[in-house]
């Protein structure tokens, strides 16, 4: 049993790694994507729209397999499994985050930009001190949902053989003819998400010091 728990903790660390690296890259990449999506240049906008449509319109598991195996067919070689997972997750989540950012940005009334302009603020000050804090507050609930989904999505990494928590549990389950390891894994995911949910609740509460308008 101890042996099993140790394995599962190791698996959990891998899951964390997938989770952390995905957030690290997809959060800023989403900003770039939203910039493209809101671009006035037709071709940029169209390409970004197609990209978002594909990311949202196909299963993550397919995207993952594609990212991992496509280079084999094209170049005869691929990157290691972990890298494939991170690449697939980052481009998938960046698309979702971009959509959330866009909703937040569009919820800010044009009067905020106008007041900032009339008062002589630079564009960058307007973005960082006037628009961004309001967008941030606006998107926290949606971001919370997405981050919780990501924790659960880390289980898909086993599709291409990454030894994260779910795979460890599944292997142990098969070995010991018991559903116990899977049940334990469920508890692990649940606890992780409880922490994430709590963190977002606290952020939301902290940002509720003002009301809109």
């Amino acid at each position, binding site marked *: 049993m101890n042996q099993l728990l140790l394995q599962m903790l190791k698996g959990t660390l891998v899951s964390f790694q997938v989770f952390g690296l995905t957030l690290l890259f997809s959060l800023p990449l989403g900003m770039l994507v939203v910039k493209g999506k809101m671009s006035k240049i037709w071709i940029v906008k169209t390409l970004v729209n197609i990209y978002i449509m594909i990311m949202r319109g196909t299963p993550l598991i397919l995207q993952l397999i594609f990212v991992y195996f496509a280079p084999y067919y094209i170049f005869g070689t691929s990157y290691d499994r972990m890298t494939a997972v991170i690449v697939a997750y980052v481009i998938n989540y960046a698309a979702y985050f971009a959509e959330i950012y866009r909703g937040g940005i569009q919820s800010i009334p044009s*009067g905020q930009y106008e007041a900032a302009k009339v*008062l*002589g603020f630079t564009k960058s000050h307007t973005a960082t001190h006037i628009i961004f804090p*309001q967008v941030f507050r606006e998107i926290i609930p949606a971001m919370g949902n997405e981050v919780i989904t990501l924790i659960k999505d880390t289980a898909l990494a086993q599709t291409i053989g990454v030894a994260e928590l779910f795979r460890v549990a599944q292997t142990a389950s098969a070995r010991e003819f018991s559903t116990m390891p899977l049940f334990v894994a469920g508890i692990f995911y649940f606890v992780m998400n409880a922490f994430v949910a709590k963190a977002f609740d606290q952020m939301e509460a902290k940002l509720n010091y*003002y*009301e809109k*308008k």
Partner: protein
Amino acid sequence: MSDLKDNKVDYMIEVNNLIKSYGNQEVIKDVSFHVAKGEVLSIIGPSGSGKSTILRAINQLESIEGGEVIICGDTLYKEGLVLTQDQKRKIQLHNGLVFQDFNLFPHMSIKRNIAEALIYVLNKSKIEANEIALQLLDKMGLKDRADSYPSQLSGGQKQRVSIARALALKPNVLWFDEPTSALDPELTNEILKVIKNLAKEKMTMVVVTHEMSFARDISDRVIFMDEGFIAESGTPEEVFGNPKNPRTQQFLQSFNQ
């Protein structure tokens, strides 16, 4: 840039033959007016006649398609003139604009709403900026609300904050776009009183308003806009007392009923 003490500069605002269009529809057609230092100009006219557009164009919230706009001696627009973003921002600092729906920053305390531009635009220290903010809030009768957020204030209080925010940058000209239209009728007077006091202090102002008796009371000159043109202009006595244009007569009638 400009030198207002220079006798060559008689006007704070010079607008000559201003043209503004949306697409191929001209909404401001050949509008000219001047505002002298310390003068209060009211712009009246039916809804859709172009009053807001004039204010917005001169405050750089809309593009300008023709004519000439000179603000405190600095040319903002004339044909062929190209200004950098920075030059445009400097010119805008001659102006203060008070919006109909306040546009306060909801995530900042009202003190911060006023101090923010003092710190980041005029490069004042935080301490000095806060002092100025508190002085202005005091003047507006809102000193005890300094740490409140905009959502905690009444409409009239919000508008007083937004006036304070504009005044903080010491603009040479203060523009108002229907400053009382978003307010409950019983809150209108507190804002009109503030504007009246500013007029007494010889603040140069351009006020778009539907408050006719107020316009008559505080203005040195009045412009009546109709369909993108200045249909009539003159002293309040001339425009309100003895309107010549039938459109003006008709418009003023509708207020007397």
